[in-house]
């Protein structure tokens, strides 16, 4: 493992990879700073750029986008109280208050440094936990694969705690999307409507670009909300000079909230927003001055920012080791990994270690670049909001079309992307969580293949069920599935009861 770490470190510091990390981070910050855009959109748009690069360089570019965009969301949250990404919402509570008090630059510096520490904690977790977990996954046979897929699907309930029924419907829609094409065991075509392009199933990257980016783009065109006017916030006078102390004001808060972010990132479906809110809460508990939170207190930025950036490393752990994407960004990153010939699992950390480790170190390199670029020029990034929305939307559409086409040099993929975009928009309008759809779409074929194989091996459904419930790993996964399924239902009932009592 040590040789892989040294190799990853040296490869990540090659000039071409440093350049990719710099480009990715800067573009990521721009995407994050625009309230209508997100890290998912940034990665979707830049996937075609990564095709022309070596896999390690291409993935480092995308790692930079992920890190940059997660931080970038805080810029607009601080300056105009409009979070660029949902995970930056909690940052605005104290960040914007600081900006209103004339401490905007200080708030932006704190946001960059806290994001840096959060990313580094996530990176350390990824580097240490992921190889061990990937190695453990070698013990998985078809029964464990079935249970793992079922566990992933039960996460849907926690994803959609507000609309549990709609969340499950979304998951089932995803499962149905996963049924398109040849069945994973016998190879018979299903739901292809006579189209050859559908025989191998819905292509992962165009489908995900469609579901996430095109649907978001359509929403942006309708609402005209991609950019916000920050000119007034930028014009305010603020002559704060950076000090060395600024780079690590609250070490304990960074550490603890970063760990909280990692843990939440590992839980599929929890995501950056929950981590940020929990980070804020934890920072308040740790603080010597909890009464100052909400009034424009610097520590109120440190907590949520280190937590939402800690999610990056955490969310990559289940994606890279077990093939379960924890959120939208990791789902699309998983598609990018596959396009570069990488399949989640132990092979990533052994056979393909020469790509995986530079990618992991790419996160740390991007974090360093992010803190330098962020501390020195956060205010400049806010100016990306001056790009007129109409040119932004058309440019993004051109790049997503290019991204979908370049996957297989196929026009059919572009049509599929647009069709999935329409589906995504409809689902969003109906308040059905797209992450649930994507989990169903990715885990469906895995569950079907595992179940059919188990049934063949055990001579029927009864035998398959018995073999699943008598294996220790399966039992643990079964208990965890039951827990994650029941918990949000219990919470929803409790909340409803409390509401009724209050009324």
């Amino acid at each position, binding site marked *: 493992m040590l040789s892989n770490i040294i190799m990853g470190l040296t490869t990540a510091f090659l000039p071409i990879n440093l350049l990719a990390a710099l480009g990715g981070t800067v573009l990521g910050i721009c995407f994050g700073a625009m309230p209508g855009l997100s890290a998912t959109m940034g990665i979707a748009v830049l996937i075609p750029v990564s095709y022309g690069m070596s896999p390690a360089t291409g993935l480092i570019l995308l790692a930079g986008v992920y890190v940059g965009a997660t931080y970038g969301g805080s810029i607009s949250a601080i300056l105009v109280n409009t979070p660029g990404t949902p995970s930056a919402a909690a940052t605005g509570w104290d960040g914007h208050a600081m900006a209103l008090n004339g401490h905007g630059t200080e708030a932006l510096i704190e946001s960059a440094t806290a994001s840096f520490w959060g990313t580094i904690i996530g990176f350390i977790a990824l580097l240490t936990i992921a190889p061990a977990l990937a190695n453990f996954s070698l013990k998985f046979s078809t029964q464990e694969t079935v249970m793992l897929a079922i566990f992933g699907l039960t996460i849907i309930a926690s994803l959609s705690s507000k609309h549990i029924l709609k969340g499950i419907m979304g998951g089932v829609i995803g499962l*149905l999307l996963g049924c398109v094409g040849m069945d994973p065991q016998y190879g018979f075509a*299903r739901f292809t409507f006579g189209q050859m392009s559908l025989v191998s199933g819905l292509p992962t990257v165009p489908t995900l670009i469609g579901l996430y980016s095109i649907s978001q783009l359509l929403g942006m065109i309708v609402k005209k909300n991609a950019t916000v006017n920050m000119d007034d916030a930028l014009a305010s006078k603020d002559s704060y000079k950076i000090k060395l102390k600024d780079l690590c004001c609250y070490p304990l808060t960074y550490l603890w909230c970063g760990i909280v972010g990692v843990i939440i990132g590992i839980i599929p479906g929890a995501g950056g927003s929950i981590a940020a809110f929990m980070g804020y809460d934890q920072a308040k508990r740790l603080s010597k001055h909890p009464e100052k939170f909400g009034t424009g207190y610097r520590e109120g930025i440190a907590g949520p920012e280190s937590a939402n950036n800690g999610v990056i490393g955490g969310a990559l752990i289940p994606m890279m080791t077990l093939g379960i994407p924890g959120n939208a960004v990791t789902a699309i990153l998983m598609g990018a990994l596959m396009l570069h010939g990488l399949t989640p699992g132990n092979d990533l950390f052994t056979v393909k270690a020469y790509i995986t480790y530079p990618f992991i170190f790419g996160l740390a390199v991007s974090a360093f670049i992010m803190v330098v670029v962020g501390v020195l020029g956060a205010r400049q990034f806010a100016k990306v909001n001056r790009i007129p929305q109409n040119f932004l*939307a058309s440019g993004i559409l051109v790049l997503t079309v290019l991204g979908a086409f370049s996957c297989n040099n196929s026009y059919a993929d572009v049509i599929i992307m647009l069709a999935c975009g329409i589906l995504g928009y409809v689902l969003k309008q109906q308040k059905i969580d797209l992450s649930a759809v994507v989990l169903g779409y990715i885990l469906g074929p895995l569950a079907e293949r595992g179940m059919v194989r188990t049934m063949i091996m055990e001579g029927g459904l009864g035998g398959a069920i018995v073999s699943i419930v008598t294996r220790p790993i399966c039992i643990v996964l079964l208990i965890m599935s039951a827990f994650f399924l029941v918990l949000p239902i219990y919470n929803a009932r409790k909340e409803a009861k409390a509401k009724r009592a209050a009324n």
Partner: protein
Amino acid sequence: MYKREKMAAAFWIIVFAIFVGLTGGVNEKCRSFPYFVCAIGIIFSALQFANVCYKEKKNLEIDDPIPAMSKEQLGTVALALIFSFAYIGLIRVLGYFVTTFIFIAGFSYWQNQKQKKSWYILVPVIMIVIVFLAFKVMLNVPLPSGLLI
């Protein structure tokens, strides 16, 4: 509010029912999983429908209901999609760069006519030059092609 929620649930019941019918047409060895998926889909969509009916009857509020879409918004989405499909269709005829120029100019102008006219020419040209240099020259990424450039 309730009507839109009920319509959405009914829509998915119909979709899943159609897929039950389509599953009947595939090889019997690979029918069981889609049947299972559709059955779950119908059950939960029906539960959602019943849930909305219950809330309507009891006059309970729906958390974060489906928003209403105005005709103007629907028209905007439809036109954006028509633009996009036309863009893809025209690439095969006019070529990637010519179509991209027309698309960016037209699509941007359609969304906002208040900018300087020269911008609608300059921005597409800059965009095309960036795409050509970055993707074609530097990164060797295959671009869609047509009869023209």
